[in-house]
């Protein structure tokens, strides 16, 4: 079994870990590290009967996830201290939101940068307050800057000069150029207060964001982790709220995200056996291609299926920009790459 496939299988059915041969363990650990799912794997797999080296690796992974969670929550707290005087809603997104919201999707999850959503009108004030509190621009490049400000859904990344942590400040959850334009005001209006001045998206919006992030904004590299998030969110929310699937369907339609959310639910069901209503299960031919892309990882941690990956890379640009703008963007990027041949 290919390592990407093995990883998805063991995550979905942790009992399978008891049957693995040593070589399979090595492949599984390597693939899980490459997909940044090692912390998740560590929490899924019972540590009672594991080979010693595996227990040691997974123990380290659990510790690493605990420290990452601590650092992420602290960064959110420092952001809150810097911005709370503005009186604008501060909505955490992605990993930090899962951790702060105490969701199953946050357990063991790798958390990198801090992602924050604020109303677009508040962006200049948020930017100024962050700059005053020790954050600095991470990239000096003028083209990227202008591009970000004109077309992106977030400020250029900011880095805290003492803590070395990055923050992405979003005003919506997809680039403005994308074919789908979610309703940012509705996202913020529906956000759930955590009681400490921070917010997270409402459950349906959280799933919609995860689905758009995975299927409408990128080439699916490292996407297995995002699909795992979706599985955990769907399970947790549908257990808490019997009407969750109905609400999700309605809300996805409001954001124009229906097909992406449906794709997310189908693939989560395919790879992780996520339960869901039968109406959401109708298979699409292209699902197999997405599955192939998400599992393209071998037992040495290398990406496989080069052509599939290339296809998804091209797709990622296609879905994010109107064709003429895409041409202009690629041209500018290409010009900047043409340099003197490297000396060797």
């Amino acid at each position: 079994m290919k390592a990407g496939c093995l990883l998805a299988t063991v995550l979905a059915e942790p009992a399978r870990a008891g049957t693995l041969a040593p070589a399979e363990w090595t492949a599984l650990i390597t693939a899980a590290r490459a997909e940044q799912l090692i912390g998740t794997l560590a929490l899924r797999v019972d540590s009672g009967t594991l080979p010693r080296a595996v227990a040691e690796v997974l123990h380290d992974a659990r510790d690493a996830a605990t420290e990452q969670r601590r650092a992420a929550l602290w960064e959110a707290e420092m952001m809150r201290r810097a911005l709370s005087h503005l009186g604008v809603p501060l909505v955490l997104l992605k990993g930090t939101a899962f951790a702060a919201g105490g969701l199953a999707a946050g357990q063991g999850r790798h958390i990198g940068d801090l992602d924050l959503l604020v109303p677009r009108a508040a962006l200049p004030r948020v930017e100024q307050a962050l700059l005053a509190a020790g954050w600095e621009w991470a990239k000096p490049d003028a083209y990227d800057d202008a591009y970000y400000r004109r077309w992106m859904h977030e400020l250029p990344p900011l880095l805290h000069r003492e803590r070395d942590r990055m923050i992405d400040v979003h005003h919506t959850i997809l680039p403005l150029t994308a074919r789908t334009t979610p309703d940012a005001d509705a996202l913020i209006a529906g956000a759930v207060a955590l009681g400490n001045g921070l917010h997270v998206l409402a459950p349906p919006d959280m799933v919609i964001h995860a689905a758009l992030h995975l299927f409408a904004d990128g080439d699916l590299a490292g996407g297995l982790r995002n699909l795992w998030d979706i599985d955990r969110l769907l399970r947790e929310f549908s257990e808490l709220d019997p009407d969750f699937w109905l609400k999700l369907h309605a809300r996805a339609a409001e954001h124009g995200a229906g097909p992406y959310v449906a794709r997310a639910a189908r693939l989560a069901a395919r790879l992780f056996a996520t339960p869901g209503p039968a109406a959401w299960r109708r298979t699409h031919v292209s699902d197999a291609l997405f599955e192939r892309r998400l599992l393209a990882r071998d037992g040495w941690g290398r990406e496989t299926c080069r052509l599939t990956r290339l296809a998804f890379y091209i797709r990622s640009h296609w879905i994010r920009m109107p064709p003429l703008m895409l041409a202009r963007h690629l041209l500018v990027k290409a010009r900047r790459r043409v340099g003197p041949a490297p000396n060797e």
Partner: protein
Amino acid sequence: MSFRVGPVGFRVGSDFAALIATLRALYADYPGPEIAHFTVRLPATAPWRRFLRPSVAIEGDYMLPDAAPLPLAQGLLAAEMAMNLQVALGHRRHLLLHASCVERDGRAIIMTGESGAGKSTLATLLGARGWRFMGDEFVLVDPMTGDVYAFPRAISLKNEAIGVVQHAIPGGRFGPLLRNTPKGDIRHLMPTPDAIARMDEPARPALLLFPAFGASRDVREVGSVEAFVRLTQASTNYTALGERGFDALADLVERVPARAIDYPDGQTALAMVEALWEAA
């Protein structure tokens, strides 16, 4: 191929069969774990770079974005660096100190300093004088017990140290001489069979040394707070270990005396270390 160095098992793969064969020969005395803690990849930087000016990339479970590839002739150095990187970024069972270490009667001297301070050479020469060599790159502090564990991989001798050690240990098992690497000339020396056979035996830290090569002979006491700060900067995972790291390091600097020693040559350094040991 897989082999275990102290508590860390590695799996190493490469496009270059000759490189794997060299590693296999050098690490023949090390146990081969069934399941490795870390995977190291040493692929060609591009498909044609297997044959045409062959060039080795440094990859694995943990990677640095700017790590520069090395020519195949320096492949052993690429392997060494890739192994270091996995341990430095991935290993959390112990507090890692970028240090060399020797042991006698169950008690250890930890020597840490910047590259060029002579910590590898000192540990190697002490190893030839009845001490057990425990490592020249990392020493692993158990946060539970405060004991140190060995990481005796191939010793990486650089520049002048190569001649000094070849002279002192004429019968040593040396690897090929790697000329003009980015770190200068490098030659690997395998630890003695005894050091490898006893690599799972912990030791009690008894002396912390901060050697500096070049200046005239001098010994200074290093206070616990200075030792603490210097060791946080000599540790690749202090921050990552969180509270465990804090406790382990504070315990270490409270309990173990620390000295900075300046020395003009290896013989002087050995005499200084053994005198400090007698007094400790």
